[in-house]
């Protein structure tokens, strides 16, 4: 299930695995500089006059989706617990901010703090329930909680019921552009750093074999919950800002079912368990969906479905994972081939 043999011949001549491998090493060695450069490039468009309008919104939403996909990946990709209910964090963050700004008349920054607290409390309770489950059960339980929260939101007065919340007097678009960018950069830095620490190793260990991790002395519940809260934190921040960005929040928008799938698809297509993958996936898929929606109205969701199927069947490792596998295809034999006396059992995938 790695690279497609038909295209790899061409690829091989343009970009041999060796060179790509060196490129990966280079990126790995200069991760901090890359994130810094990304932040600078992201901050530039408004400086050069892009302050509002269509492109501004598109870019803001790209950052937003990258946050959502990367947050999903902390638990789904790094820790191996694929959630189908991450939009619950988004919605709770959004509603908490909206209620604080509109009904309690607090300022935007303070409301965001309130939203973060609300999301973390929710994530802790939610995590207590779902993180005991594995596989199918975990996936569907998270979806069930998302839908239950959506129904509850519809029926409460404080959330404005099905009518939702309208938010006037919101900050201008540029504030949200920089807010989403800043959250994304911070999140990338945090995830990148964590992948190099013992904490990050433990998350990966839980993904690969939770039983073994426990047998090695790790209280996996503790680490899973920490990852879960971290994902909730960033998703909730994004949701909190989005309500104001959009000036309107109802249960349909706040717990958007299509986004819930899109953010998973973005992480998958970019490459789960990596820092760059979900971000690349978010930028790429969002651009494609934008294009399809303007050129072939009504077909964007057909495309999304087909794209998911094709990715899962042909490139389950996503862009980054597939390229990395390609770059590393020879290294096992080169580095340790002589030690591999019984290597007929080489497992190529988990």
């Amino acid at each position, binding site marked *: 299930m790695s690279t497609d043999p038909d295209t790899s011949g061409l690829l091989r001549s343009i970009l041999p695995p060796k060179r790509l491998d060196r490129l990966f090493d280079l990126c790995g060695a200069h991760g901090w500089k890359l994130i810094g450069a990304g932040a600078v490039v992201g901050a530039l468009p408004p400086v050069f006059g892009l302050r509002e309008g269509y492109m501004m919104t598109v870019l803001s939403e790209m950052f937003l989706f990258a946050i959502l996909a990367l947050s999903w990946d902390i638990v789904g990709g790094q820790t191996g617990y694929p959630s189908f209910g991450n939009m619950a964090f988004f919605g709770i963050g959004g509603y908490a901010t909206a209620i604080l700004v509109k009904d309690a008349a607090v300022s935007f920054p303070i409301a965001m703090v309130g939203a973060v607290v609300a999301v973390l409390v929710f994530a802790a309770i939610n995590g207590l329930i779902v993180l005991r489950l594995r596989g199918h059960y975990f996936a569907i339980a998270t979806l069930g909680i998302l839908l239950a929260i959506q129904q509850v939101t519809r029926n409460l007065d404080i959330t404005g019921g099905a009518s939702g919340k309208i938010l006037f007097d919101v900050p201008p678009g540029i504030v949200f552009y920089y807010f989403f960018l800043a959250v994304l950069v911070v999140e990338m830095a945090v995830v990148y750093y964590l992948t190099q*620490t013992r904490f990050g190793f*433990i998350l*990966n260990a839980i993904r690969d074999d939770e039983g073994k991790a426990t047998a*090695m002395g790790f209280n996996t519940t503790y680490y899973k919950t920490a990852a879960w809260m971290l994902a909730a934190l960033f998703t909730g921040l994004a949701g909190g800002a989005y309500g104001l960005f959009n000036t309107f929040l109802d249960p349909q928008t706040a717990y958007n079912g299509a986004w819930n799938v899109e953010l998973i698809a973005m992480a998958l297509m970019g490459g789960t368990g990596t820092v760059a993958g979900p971000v690349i996936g978010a930028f790429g898929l969002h651009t494609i969906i934008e294009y399809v929606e303007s050129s072939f109205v009504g077909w964007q969701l057909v495309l999304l479905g087909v794209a998911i199927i094709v990715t899962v069947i042909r490139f389950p490792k996503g862009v980054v994972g597939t390229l990395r596998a390609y770059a590393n295809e020879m290294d096992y034999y080169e580095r340790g081939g002589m030690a*591999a006396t019984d290597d007929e059992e*080489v497992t190529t995938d988990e």
Partner: protein
Amino acid sequence: MSNTPETDDHAATATADDTVLRTEGITKRFGGLTAVNEVDVEVHEGEIVGLIGPNGAGKSTLFNCITGTLTADEGRVTLQGEDVTDWPEYKIARAGLGRMFQETRIFGGMSVRKNLLLAAQEGGADIGGLLRRPDDSLMERTNELLEYVDLGGLADTRAGRLSFGQQKLIEFAMELMAEPDLLLMDEPAGGINPTMLENLIDYIRTANDEEEATIFLIEHNMDFVMEIADRIYVLAHGERIATGTPDEIQNNQHVIDAYLGRE
């Protein structure tokens, strides 16, 4: 006590101080089936102890009761003098119990080096340790260990790409990294070729001799276990039917009967 003809002979030979592991009357039932019935074992510091018995004798179940993977219905487990019977699995492991699995379990999605770094106990569970990047001395130690098991070139390879035998060596190196007070090994000789088996025996011996590692292992390969073990326990139908040195076990009528299938 058990209805076996054996009486506890080791209690006399060992002082209480050097007992690493002691189980007393461990019993585990699955539905109507008693998988382990009132089993007592003791492992002393620096010993290599074997656990043998026919398929379905309850060897792995006993291991699982010791590690806390399963909770025993009756009986107590003591590790380094501390009663760990009701502790969760991770806490028992943290108290100094290491375990290698029959099917070999390492973290296939991570590099070989990360597998080893993970096993190091220095990092601990405190926030500071969790959020620090591994320091140079730790990196050096992983390099040494990989060189030691002859897998130095594979440090940055994804562990899942390694052969079964190599994975077994990595799992062993992880335990050397962790330096547990007691290492449980479930069929270390299973599924690897003769050359590698030789190497493995060497490594285990060396660890035992030089690092004074204490090892409790399940094994089907009789040559292997007779060669390496100081003492052996024999289980059949969930009960301990014999204990003694390899020579004593080889000549024990109960053991021979059990392996031949006589009730």
